[in-house]
């Protein structure tokens, strides 16, 4: 029955394939922005938004969005007009396009291609480009500094991210994220633990830690939020943006956070597989489990953000080049050896 459902849903018209992830991202972004403010509030002994919409200010993000839509679209006088206007959309397009290869449930994946991971990593590299574009086009020195920082940061942290993703690929033997997820079905480890990669191999736990640190840096979260560190660079590459264009940056940033968290869920936590084997399985529950895992990682990112101070730009590079990259490559070799022996 399952495979029948799969073939049916893969024949959906293209428009549905386009619209589904977009809906998920938009709903998620509204919830996540509200959620982040709530998380921040609770961590800081406050209540967070409480007014708009009645119950715990649930409509706050919607009100914010409406306000942003009404704002005047300001382009600085000496800015490079086309690039300035284009950059936010390009950034959002890059993170949105990457969702195509994410298997949301056993019944739904945007594009079931066999180079999924490769495609995802390639498409997200465009984010760097759009940030530099925004920074340079703003014609603002603070923006430029933020843009240069982000270029250095994202290019550097892509290396450990890719190395840890490779580690998982070595174990899985496939670049297709659907196949990678299917390999993690069942509850066989120690008789009850699910067959998720994080439980399969001790070195993959190390890989996950490196991967998580790297995606914090990739998605510009504290302690690595240097490109837009508000206390140093005003707002980094976003300084000159306002209204809907700024909202696009925010949207892209939150989408990027979700994307990388979902990638982490696929690679290490069994994607849409239920933690209880067949219990609560199936495509619909699969979607639930998958989003739950992704959102839990997003929550951890928020938690870290509201706890730690920020690194300095040279310390950030030091962590990447002299700690994470050597570690991730040694780990890759060790995982490969483990796979060879067991």
């Amino acid at each position: 029955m399952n495979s029948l459902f799969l073939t049916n849903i893969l024949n959906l018209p293209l428009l549905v394939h386009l619209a589904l992830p977009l809906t998920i991202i938009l709903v998620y972004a509204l919830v996540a922005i509200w959620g982040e403010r709530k998380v921040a509030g609770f961590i800081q002994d406050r209540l967070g938004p409480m007014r708009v919409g009645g119950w715990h200010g649930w409509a706050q993000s919607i009100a914010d969005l409406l306000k942003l839509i009404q704002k005047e679209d300001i382009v600085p006088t000496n800015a490079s007009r086309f690039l300035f206007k284009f950059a936010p959309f390009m950034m959002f397009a890059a993170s949105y396009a990457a969702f195509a290869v994410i298997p949301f449930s056993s019944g739904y994946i945007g594009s079931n291609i066999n180079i999924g991971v490769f495609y995802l990593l390639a498409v997200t590299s465009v984010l760097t480009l759009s940030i530099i574009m925004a920074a340079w086009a703003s014609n603002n020195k603070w923006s430029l500094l933020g843009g240069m920082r982000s270029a250095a940061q994202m290019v550097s942290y892509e290396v450990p991210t890719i190395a840890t993703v490779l580690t998982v690929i070595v174990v899985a033997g496939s670049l297709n994220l659907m196949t990678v997820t299917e390999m993690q079905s069942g509850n066989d480890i120690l008789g009850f633990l699910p067959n998720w990669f994080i439980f399969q191999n001790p070195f993959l736990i190390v890989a996950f830690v490196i991967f998580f640190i790297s995606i914090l840096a990739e998605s510009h979260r504290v302690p690595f939020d240097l490109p837009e560190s508000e206390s140093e660079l005003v707002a980094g590459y976003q300084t000159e943006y306002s209204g809907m264009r700024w909202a696009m940056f925010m949207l892209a940033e939150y989408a990027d956070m979700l994307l990388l968290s979902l990638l982490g869920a696929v690679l290490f936590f069994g994607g849409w597989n239920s933690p209880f084997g067949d219990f609560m399985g199936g495509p619909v529950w699969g979607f639930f489990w998958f989003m739950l895992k992704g959102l839990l990682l997003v929550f951890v990112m928020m938690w870290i953000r509201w706890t730690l101070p920020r690194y300095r730009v040279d310390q950030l590079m030091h962590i990447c080049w002299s700690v994470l990259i050597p570690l991730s490559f040694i780990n890759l070799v060790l995982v490969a050896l483990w796979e060879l022996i067991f």
Partner: protein
Amino acid sequence: MIELISDTGERREMTINMGPQHPSTHGVLRLELVLDGEIIKKVKPHIGYLHRCFEKYAEEMDDYAKVIPYTDRMDYVSAMNQEHGYVVAVERMLELEVPERVEHIRVIVAEMQRIASHLLGIGAFGLDLGAFTPFLYLFTEREKILDIFEKVSGARLLYNYMAVGGLMRDVHPEFKEDVADFVKTFRPKIKELDNLLSYNKIFINRTANIGVLPVEVALNYAASGPVLRGSGLKWDLRKDDPYSIYDRFEFDIPVGSGEVGTLGDCWDRYIVRVREMEQSLRIIEQALESMPDEGDVMEAIPKRIRMKEGEIYVRTESPRGELGYFIAGDNSASPFRVKARAPSFVHLSMLPAISRGSLIADMVAIIGSIDIVLGEVDR
């Protein structure tokens, strides 16, 4: 327009304007930075955006008492200490003794204000380094102090509470219990702060060995307060040149020791403030114990003070350092001249000396660690 920057020669450098609307210049400070990449080659502070003619107003007020609200507005985060310095100066000039109860209340509110000011300074320092949450935790505590001040004086920021010869009015009846409560609840919070911020690895990475101020340089620039003590010199006017009744209390002077980096770095200046809050709590406890329950809070002096001819310089220990008032009287109702020696102004002048060669991110840390208040810099 972005200037053209080439790889070689002078054009490698970029001039950038930090402030007066920058989020971490603590008010309206403007810094002209010459950068090579992110490395700072030159710093030039520009001040005067908050100049309000304090000294000229003081001459024109026609009353010594009317100057007090203006002193509040100099260092607006430690208004009680500013008032304290001024009234002590005027009283010394008049050779006036104030009642015991008044001295005790003054010391208690001044020390509470010192804690409140340090809480803001430390919190904003953390905020500059990207740690948002400690800032709000500290503000919760500061709020408790402001609540007590509101009950005492009716205001939360600018109190106008101390008067020449006494206090504007007596404290509320539950003052002692309120303060004792605060002392009890606040002490564990310092431990919490140590865990959350002071010994946080990232925080230490960001502050140790940054903005090192050797003690000779500090003395040459006439630094004082936590900035000087952070460089390792035990110098506190409450002990070395006691005013009010500070000579009766037992407390230590915390100094920097280079515990996690070099002596006199940002972390040392920070930790001196944290330790000072503990000492202020000790002073408050002792003062609460010896404070008389009954008594007048105003010495019988004429409503309008007429000062004899002469001049005086009185220095007190404000949370930021040596706050000095020079007052010259000329037989009339208003001072001939009032000059305030503001510690923030002095500390700001050291900025170019201690920040050359650091990164922009360090610049933010250094400004945070010297804890300037622009109201006091510009007066």
